[in-house]
C-alpha cells in the first residue's frame, strides 16, 4: 500500500504516510501494521469479555426485569381500570334505578298530600258553609228584630207627632182617636 514511488496514484499519496512519527516504518495503512494486531486482539477480547459480564450478570437481567415489571403493572392497571369501569356502570345503573324509584315515591307522596289537602279543604269548606248559614240566619233574625223595633218606634213617633200637630191646630186632642187614626193609616 505504502509507496514511496512518485506514480500518479493520488490515492497512495493521500493515504501515504511517508512522513514523520513512528509511522515512518509503518505501512501506508496503520490497519495493516501487523505488529499491533496482538495488542488490539488482546485488549479487544478483554473489552468484549468485560462487556459480556456487565451485560449478562447485571444489565440485561435488570432491564428485562424492569420491562417485565412494567408490562405487569400495565396489565394490572388495565385490568383494574376494566373492573372500575364495570363498577361505575353498575353504580350508574343503581343510581338510575334509585332515581326512578325516588321519582315514583315523590309522585305518590304528592298525590297523597294532594288528597289530604283536598279532604281538609272540603271539610273546612263545609264547616265554613255551615257557619256562614248560621251567621246569615242570625243576622236575618237580628235584622227582622231591628226592623220590628223600627216600625214600633215609627208608630210612637207618628202618634206623638200627630198628637202635637192636632194640639197645635185645634187646641185639644183625643189620644185614643189619634192613636186609632194613626194605626189605620199605618196599616193602609
Amino acid at each position, binding site marked *: 500500500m505504502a509507496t514511496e514511488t512518485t506514480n500518479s496514484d*493520488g490515492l497512495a499519496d493521500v493515504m501515504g504516510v511517508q512522513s514523520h512519527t513512528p509511522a515512518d516504518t509503518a505501512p501506508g495503512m496503520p490497519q495493516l501494521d501487523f505488529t499491533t*494486531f496482538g*495488542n*488490539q486482539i488482546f485488549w479487544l477480547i478483554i*473489552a468484549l469479555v468485560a462487556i*459480556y459480564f456487565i*451485560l449478562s450478570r447485571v*444489565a440485561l437481567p435488570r432491564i428485562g426485569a424492569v420491562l417485565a415489571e412494567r408490562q405487569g403493572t400495565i396489565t394490572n392497571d388495565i385490568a383494574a381500570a376494566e373492573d372500575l369501569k364495570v363498577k361505575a356502570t353498575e353504580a350508574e345503573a343503581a343510581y338510575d334505578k334509585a332515581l326512578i324509584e325516588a321519582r315514583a315515591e315523590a309522585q305518590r307522596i304528592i298525590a297523597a298530600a294532594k288528597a289530604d289537602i283536598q279532604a281538609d279543604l272540603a271539610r273546612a269548606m263545609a264547616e265554613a258553609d255551615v257557619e256562614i248559614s248560621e251567621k246569615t240566619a242570625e243576622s236575618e233574625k237580628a235584622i227582622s228584630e231591628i226592623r220590628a223595633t223600627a216600625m214600633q218606634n215609627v208608630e210612637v213617633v207618628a202618634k206623638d207627632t200627630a198628637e202635637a200637630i192636632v194640639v197645635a191646630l185645634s187646641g185639644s186632642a183625643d189620644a185614643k182617636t189619634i192613636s186609632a187614626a194613626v194605626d189605620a193609616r199605618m196599616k193602609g
Partner: protein
Amino acid sequence: MVAEAKGAEAGGLVFHPMDQFIVEPFFGDGAVSWYTITNSTVWMAIAVLAVFALLVMGTSKRAIVPTRMQSVAELAYGFIYKMVEDICGKEGVKYFPYIMTLFMFIVFSNFLGLLPMAFTPTSHIAVTAIMAFAVFFAVTILGFVKHGASFLELFWVSSAPLALRPILALIEVISYFVRPVSHSIRLAGNMMAGHAVIKVFAGFAAIAAIAPLSVVAITAMYGLEVLVSFIQAYVFTILTCVYLKDALHPHH
C-alpha cells in the same frame, strides 16, 4: 487525485488522513507489545465504561416510569432483543447477550470515535476481523453441534432443480466462507473511510479561500458519519443474527 493537485498548488499543504489510525502507546513511547496500553486500549476501555454507565448506572433506579437514561438503555435492549427474536426465533434468544455485547461494543466504539481526537477501535481490521471470525466459528460449530452432518444441507438448496444444486452448493460454500471477510471489512472500511475523508476535508481548511467550504463539508460528512456509525453497528449485528439463524435452522 484532486486533493493531490490542490495540495501541490498550495504547497506545504500536507495530508495525513491515516495518521489518526496509528496505534501507539498511550503512556510514553516505545514499541507496542501485546499488553501495552495503547490509544486503542484506552478507547475500548472508555467504550466499556460507557456501556456500563448506560446499561447499569442508567438503570440503577429500576423505575417503572423510566428516566431518560433508562429509556435509552431499554430502547437498546428492546431493539436488539426484538432483532434476535424476529430473525432467529425463540431458540435464538439465549444467544441474545452475546449479540448485545457485540452491538454495544461496536455502537459505542463507533460513536466515541466521532469525538475529536478520539481513536476508533472498530476502524481496525484486526478488531472487526476477530469479531467476525468469532461469529463465523461460533456459528459454524453451533450448526454442527446442533444438527451434525445435516448442517451441510444449508449448502444443498433442495428447492432448486436437481441439476442446478451442485453449482448452487459451490456458490453457497464460497459465499459462506466469504462471510467473515465481508462482515469485518464492511465495518472497518466504513469507519476508516469516513474518518479519513473528514481528515482530508480538514486538511483543506488550511487554505483560507476554501476553509468555509471545508468546514461545511466536514459538518456534512460528520452528520453522515453519525448515521453510518449506527447503521454499521446495526448491520454487523443483524448479519450476526442472520448467520446464527442459519446455524439454528439450516434447512431452507
